């Protein structure tokens, strides 16, 4: 097990956040959020990884054979489902913003200042 996947997760988190901060388009911004989210996938999966581990399906495998951790995989799947909902909601809000104002650029929306 190396440090590499954790560095990838950290990099994805930071680069995604950078995208969210500097984005000039709400659709792009939501995709950057999805990049931040994918860092959690990498983190969860690398926590459960065992070098030389088999898939966690134990039919026809000798007892005690090393396997990767199925719990984090389940967590990751739940995370995918939950975040798919949130991303869909965000995109629909972005569509509504565009309908109402004709722009997707957060820089042009300053109604809520102050």
């Amino acid at each position, binding site marked *: 097990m190396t440090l590499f996947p954790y560095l990838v997760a950290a990099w994805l*988190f930071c680069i995604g956040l950078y995208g969210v901060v500097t*984005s000039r388009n*709400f659709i792009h911004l939501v995709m950057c959020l999805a990049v931040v989210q994918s*860092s959690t996938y990498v983190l969860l999966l690398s926590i459960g990884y065992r070098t030389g581990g088999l898939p966690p399906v134990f039919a026809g495998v000798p007892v005690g054979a090393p396997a990767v951790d199925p719990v984090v995989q389940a967590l990751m799947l739940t995370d995918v489902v*939950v975040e798919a909902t*949130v991303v869909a*909601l965000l995109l629909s809000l972005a569509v509504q913003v565009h309908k*109402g104002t004709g722009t997707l650029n*957060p820089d042009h929306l*300053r109604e809520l200042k102050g």
Partner: protein
Amino acid sequence: MPLANAISAHFPALPLALPLGTAAILAALNKFMPRRLADALAILATLINFSIDVFLLHAVRSAPFVYWFGGWTPRSGVAIGICFVIDPISCALAMLVSVLVLAAFVFSLRYFDSVGTLFHVLMLGFLGAMSGFCFSGDLFNLFVFFELMSAAAFALCGYKNEEPTAQQGALNFAITNTIGAFLILCGIAMLYARTGALNMAQIGRALGQQSDALVITAFVFILVGFYIKAAIFPFHFWLADAHAVAPTPVCMLFSGVMVELGIYAVARIYWAVVAGPFAGHHSALMSLLLVVGTITSVLGAIMSFGQRHVKRMLAFSTISHTGLLLIGFALLDPQALAGVALYVAGHGLVKSSLFIGAGILLHRYGTVDELELRGRARRHRFAGFVFFIGAMGLAGVPPNLTFLGEHSISHAATLLHQDWIHVVFPFSGAVTSAAIFRVFGRVYLGLGSKAAITPGKHIPEDRETAGPHRNIPAVMIFPAFLLVIAALALTLTPQLQHAALTAARTMANTYAYQARVLDAKYIPNDAAPETNSPLRPTLISSVSAMTAGLFFAGWALSPAWPSRHRAIAPARACMRALHSLHSGHVGDYVAFLTFGAAAFGIILGLLIHRFGM
């Protein structure tokens, strides 16, 4: 009766299952459901939910109860299944959730003229998620309920979806809170990597007293994630935007209880999971959180006074009061935790009745702009009373639950020699109540001038009801008064403080919690000491806060208010700088959030490793 048996065996799952089930039925029958039937079903489900919470609170007043889904009880201290831990604090919080949802449903009976059944579906989903959040004993489930609650909240926030401001507020809210959820998930993943467990009690037991960089980092991730929801400085920016645009019944829930759930989650995780590892770093965490809480509280209070949009004013006032709640938690002491519990209840009841007051103004006059409304509501002073009593509640004047909360927290602060807390409470109370007194004076008494008093921006708001309304429906005022009366009646309940202290000591007893969940063993706390600390100091502080609030409000309404005077130019420049900080730009908010989170981790690390706190 197999059905009756099934219900009684799975009774504790009902606060989650019942609202979600009703929501599913309403969603499926959306097309055929008349509005009134949907109202009736939703209110009925919420009422039943409330009764269940009351019953559970009664049942667990002596010992907490653990419910394992599917009967997957732990074997020799290893929890495979997931559980609800039902103790007095989580029950009381779930009760508060039900009460506020009920009030919001009753209020919205006449509020939205064009409300669809989907509003009820989202509200019930919100209720179910918040109830599950209160009871969850499993860290990952806490995250799932957090996300469910957030998704319902985002949709409710953008509910008036023809308005561009509504979408923008909802987007800011959704993006910042989703980043919070990712931080929480990363923290949970780190704790799982260390312990191989997701059950809070089991993680806590596996960690024991060992404290290292990984555990502290994981806790910081979780803490920052939940404090984004709790609107703690510098993660608070989304809150005012979301409250300014969300429909009034939704604001009641956001301010009344959703924000406070962020504080609750961190408190629960602290005592169930990381109290052991942090045992040696008490003072580091305490000093950092006390400072952050104070900044949040003072900033929220000042920003609140600087608003003319009443809902935005109330939103900043909520930020100020969550700052006070954070101070209460930061003392890391059961006595202060009891105070936090009382304060959450008192603030939730008062703040949601204030939002009802703002909603009534919007319903009747089509605006919540303080200056536009000047003197227009003179005939409705009865409704204005809500503002007056609400302002008293924010100042913490008895008889109000916030008074008891403030008293418990101040008492704990005295014992822990954190005497400067005694200044923060009256300051925030005075400034936030002054803002509300000012609204009361200007709108209901017609005092003051029409000239702009502050740089706060005028945000046009669409009315949420069609056509001019000459009268105020009783179903709108009724819940507001009921909430206020509930807050007053609870204060007068004998032994409430003692009950809160007992409940807080149960929650804060890490060892007993772990034994209860993992070994099904009940270790009773030794009886809570009788609290006979003198009420006098808190009484003086809160009454002087209210007096100062009245004085400030009167000053702001009088011609003597130096709005143009050269002498206060620096103050005005500061105000303008503060206002421009709240830019409404989501990129700025996320930048603040990122730097805030990094600063939080670095400062805590420095305090622990360099100064050995």
